[in-house]
């Protein structure tokens, strides 16, 4: 196991380097110079100073120098938000997004797995149909609509939750709920299908014959096995949720990282794009590794170290 984790960790720099190169060239080949602004004229001296600081007199100098800066923990100055460094922007926004994302994913996993498992146990019954329809609606509704409807009902109409504040646990509830809807629906569907498979397998019948109670079989033995497909979905889903959602942040006015993913691209803020993409990739890689390790703990038969 230790060796498996070590080899995966050794692959990280290589994959991150390729993602860095791809992002860099995608942004650099797009027409227009990232250092000039379309909305206003920038002082020549400022451009020159920024270029000098980033070693960006030519693209290959910047390409070589920026990773060195990143390793030192300096992501450079933002090209659109003057006076702000990318490290500061990401450092301020990431904890907010991670807090919200962890809350949302916890809700999504607990509720989604619960609904999916119950639907599988009562397969074909009214609860199954009800949860299936709710899950499909959850997948079909654009996130900006579900978030805004939640906002309109609970913030504007009934004033149960405060509007546009951030800091107390109360502010977490609604945006967290809005953020958790889509993964929750997906997890419920995955759990249901996997659970139906597992419930008809031999070891469940054996457990039943041994006289184990029904709830113990469902919630411990069956669910443990039905959780595997959910687990493989959790890696990328958690990476996306933990790094923030533009829509939820915009609707609930939260200072998270999701807005920077979109705005940096729209503003062609080269350093901020590279910074956010690298953060996202690190999350994705780390969470996928975590999922692979968790596999081995949940199902000891799975040998993650084996070659595919």
């Amino acid at each position, binding site marked *: 196991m230790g060796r498996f984790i070590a080899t995966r960790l050794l692959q990280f720099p290589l994959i991150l380097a390729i993602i860095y190169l791809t992002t860099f060239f995608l942004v650099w080949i*797009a027409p227009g110079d990232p250092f000039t602004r379309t909305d206003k004229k920038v002082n020549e001296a400022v451009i020159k100073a920024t270029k000098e600081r980033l070693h960006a007199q030519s693209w290959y100098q910047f390409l070589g120098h920026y990773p060195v800066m990143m390793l030192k923990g300096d992501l450079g100055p933002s090209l659109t938000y003057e006076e702000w460094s990318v490290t500061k922007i990401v450092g301020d926004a990431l904890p907010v997004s991670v807090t919200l994302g962890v809350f949302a994913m916890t809700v999504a996993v607990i509720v989604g797995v619960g609904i999916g498992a119950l639907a599988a146990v009562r397969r074909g019954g009214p609860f199954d149909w009800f949860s299936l329809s709710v899950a499909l609606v959850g997948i*079909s*509704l654009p996130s900006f*609509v579900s978030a*805004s409807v939640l906002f309109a009902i609970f913030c504007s109409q009934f004033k149960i939750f405060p509007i546009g504040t951030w800091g107390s646990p109360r502010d977490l509830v609604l945006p967290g709920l809005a953020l958790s809807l889509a993964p929750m629906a997906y997890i419920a569907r995955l759990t249901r299908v996997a659970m139906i498979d597992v419930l008809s397998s031999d070891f469940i019948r054996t457990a039943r014959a041994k006289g184990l109670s*029904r709830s113990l079989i469902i919630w411990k033995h069956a669910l443990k096995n039905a959780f595997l497909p959910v687990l493989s979905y959790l890696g990328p889903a958690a990476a996306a949720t933990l790094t923030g959602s533009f829509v939820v942040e915009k609707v609930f006015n939260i200072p998270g990282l999701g807005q920077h993913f979109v705005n940096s691209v729209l503003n062609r803020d080269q350093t901020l794009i590279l910074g956010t993409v690298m953060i996202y990739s690190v999350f994705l890689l780390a969470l996928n590794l975590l999922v692979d390790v968790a596999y081995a703990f949940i199902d000891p038969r799975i040998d993650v170290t084996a070659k595919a």
Partner: protein
Amino acid sequence: MSTMTSPILRPANPASERSSRRLSRRLHASGRMLIGGGVLALIVLTCLLTLPLTLDAPGQDHKHPAGPLYFDRQTPYLSRVGPHFDRAQYERASGLPQDPVDSSLAGRISLWFGTDTHGRSLLGRCLLGGVISLTIGIAAAAISVVLGVAVGLLAGYRGGWIDSLLMRSVDILYGLPYILLVVLFKIALEPRLGKIGLGPRAANLVVLFLAIGLVSWLTMARVIRGQVLSLRSLPFIEACRAAGLGEWRIFTRHLLPNLIGPISVYATLTVPQAILQESFLSFLGIGVQPPIPTWGLLASEGLIPGLNSIHHYWYMLIAPCALLSVTLLSLNFLGDGLRDVFDPKREAAKI
């Protein structure tokens, strides 16, 4: 508990029960497909058949004497519907010309969903928006079928370094945030399309079709590769190779027919995804440009004034969102049903 038929207490499967359950599963799946397909056909046909009406040009209003197309035309002030139209205030203001009220049947039907902030008929905009949203979905699905199947076939069949190269590229593209790819496609392609003689509106639409299609083929490529990997090792493909058939012939005559199932399933599931992605881009303001409507754009138009001003335009949300959800629901139903019917592995696993 004894009254409930518990799956845990189910007896071992005799052969007869197995076949009857398979039949019921197929019927179950085809029932879902029928509902999904029927509702979808209804929506698509309504949107398409009313296209001549929504793109109709001859009318006039006091702002556009030349007469804009119907979906962009303002209805007479007095017949506008919506809580924010203060009729009394309008009647007090004498400066405005008294528009004649359109009392024909078509005029009344066009007000069923109310009018938007500019006084345009929401029904007309929803119908044209449906055509554009669905075209985006279908274009994305078509591109993802062509690209995804080509890459998946090549990677799965050839194996070796081609497989590693193609699949690692897919992995890296998965790792990049998709919004970055879409926006960069737009920046790179839009001016070039303008140069070859497309108008700005047409260029905007074509770029969106391409951009969304070009980021949605990744899942298809992975699924097809997996399928080809398992097909490749089967005796009939080996027999083809032993008989000296060319690679192209094996691809088109022997592999492709066996891939129809997964291809159609993932194509139907790509359509709703593409429509949702377009709605997200429209919400950001980088999707289809107004006044051309799409369902996503209409939903975001209903949203933004509702959030920022004291007026509540919530009613503008209902029609596009309901249409969007019902369409996506029926597409998901159709795709799930297809998957249950076509995918032999899933069926075997469930019995």
